[in-house]
């Protein structure tokens, strides 16, 4: 069993996302460790991409900042290596598929295995195209995290039955970004998924306040927050460690209230 299961053993999981290389790659290491210290259970780290199609402006801008620093896939691997010297918190990559394809699937996943990367989320690799990486990811013990959206409906059955690690339940239509209200009927989606699998379910897209976190914590196993984390980094630049810690610990607490 991968380390991912551990992330869901400590009450409801809080899962922050941020883009590697924003504001620079040294800070990526520092911020990951700071958020672990503040009590997060798993970290999703974005590999920067020129055209993050599923992202709202906040995360788009983080990608731009990271690429301005010339952050490469190898730099991201170096940062993971540095994190791994101090921590074995579960880490999942969030990456568009082209940087992985370009790097070479075999080479990429072997490296993930060497560095203890536990999973990969690819927003442009739906169920139908999972074959691109399924065998290689399995060979190197990297879970492919499946996304299930409000529009997935009857697709839930096949996606959930083949899912590994945890399931990323997309809370809202649209791109990533902070939303004041989650309108989707998550209870219904979660019930449909539960009928198929016992994997942990983490909900993301739009969540940013402790109130939302505690609502989601009431119905799912984990809460994923991206844009709000990235916004803190955008505002505080190289001095974001303390505000990140404060936010993460308040959100971890809220998930379990």
């Amino acid at each position, binding site marked *: 069993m991968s380390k991912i299961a551990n992330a869901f053993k400590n009450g409801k999981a809080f899962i922050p996302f941020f883009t590697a290389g924003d504001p620079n790659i040294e800070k990526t290491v520092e911020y990951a460790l700071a958020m672990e210290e503040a009590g997060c259970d798993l970290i999703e780290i974005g590999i920067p991409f020129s055209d993050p199609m*599923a992202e709202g402006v906040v995360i788009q801008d983080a990608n731009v900042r990271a*690429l301005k620093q010339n952050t490469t896939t190898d730099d991201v691997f170096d940062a993971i290596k540095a994190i791994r010297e101090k921590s074995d918190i579960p880490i999942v990559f969030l990456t568009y598929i*082209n940087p992985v394809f370009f790097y070479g699937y075999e080479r990429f996943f072997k490296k993930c295995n060497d560095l203890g990367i536990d999973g990969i989320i690819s927003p442009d690799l*739906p169920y139908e195209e999972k074959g691109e990486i399924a065998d290689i990811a399995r060979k190197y013990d990297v879970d492919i995290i499946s996304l299930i959206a409000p529009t997935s409906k009857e*697709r839930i059955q096949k996606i959930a039955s083949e899912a590994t690690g945890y399931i990323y339940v997309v809370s809202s239509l649209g791109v990533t970004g902070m939303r004041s209200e989650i309108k989707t009927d998550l209870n219904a989606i979660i019930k449909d998924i539960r009928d198929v699998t016992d994997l942990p379910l983490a909900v993301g897209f739009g969540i940013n306040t402790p109130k939302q976190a505690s609502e989601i914590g009431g119905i799912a196993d984990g809460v994923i927050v991206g844009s709000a984390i990235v916004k803190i980094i955008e505002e505080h630049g190289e001095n974001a460690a303390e505000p990140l810690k404060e936010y993460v610990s308040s959100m971890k607490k809220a998930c379990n209230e």
Partner: protein
Amino acid sequence: MNNGRYGEYGGQYISETLMNELLYLEEQYHHYMNDPDFVEELNTLLKEYAGRPSLLYYAKRMTEDLGGAKIYLKREDLNHTGAHKINNVLGQVLLAKKMGKTRVIAETGAGQHGVATATAAALLDMECEVFMGEVDTKRQALNVYRMELLGAKVHSVKSGTKTLKDAVNDAFRDWIARVHDTNYVIGSTMGPHPFPMIVRDFQAVISAEARQQFLEIEGKLPTAVIACVGGGSNAMGAFYNFIEDDEVKLIGCEAGGKGVDTPYNAAALTNGKIGIFHGMKSIFNQGDYGQIAPVYSVSAGLDYPGVGPEHAYLRDTGRAEYVPINDEEAVEAFEYLSRMEGIIPAIESAHAVAHAMKIAPTMDKDDIIMICLSGRGDKDVRSIAEYRGVELNE
């Protein structure tokens, strides 16, 4: 060639949120293409609104001047709105309407596809919003106003390189939030399946007509068909019904910009590598680590860092050949056709004209070249004047 694959290219590399909508679109597309009423309605629009069939025009002065193969122009520039884009748009917007959608969105580079979409939306009473890179809104300001006149809302896209690829990104971002009432009317043979197939099928009218016209006029098929390639829709349309005719050479012309050995070009099939982007596996201009590269062309309509998957396949199988044409060659062809035939071509189409100018003199008088004249050049007059350093006063 089904399941959206053309050899290893194509596919559906897109957000889960859009998957059911794409499957539904494909199902509805097949449903309506098998519905005689829909086909009849579309054909009536193509004939009575867009002005089809388009002429197959024998370019006599150009032929004599170049002194080789006989040159014909397939006059897509004469369609309503001035380009081949309307063929696809009438099909897609009518389909959206039948599917019960009330709103269409589109990306646009040169503005031609945006104008065509806004036109069809006006005609069919649909809400329309167009995404256009900020850079392109400046070089094609007239088309922005044209779209607004037609009742569309134009979004100036300020992310990334602020050109066509970024407009595509934002169109997908809009669609993913409004799948319930909106169809994305994509402008070229690109994106996730079923788009490359749908756009190709709607553009295939170009070669269906041309094949017939050649048999009637010349009693034989052309030796070569030449078309410019941005995402590849006019070229796919011009090639499609000749693919089985092995004797017909198919040649696509990419934007060579300031030269394919400089960083300033958009020649994906010459300089690109295989990758996965905008929903498809195909050939893309990309930098180290698979970041999509900024591209450049004098022509906003060819300024795209990739190519539709079926073209990548036609290249690999050797069925079609792709050549880069640089800015200077295209501008010269733009001027040449204007002077020789009294036809001002779109700067995109001028890339195809330029290649014909190169190969016609090397060919036999019995040979025939068809150039797909994908659009008219009114929209480009200002930027060509600028390119030539001519000042136009307001």
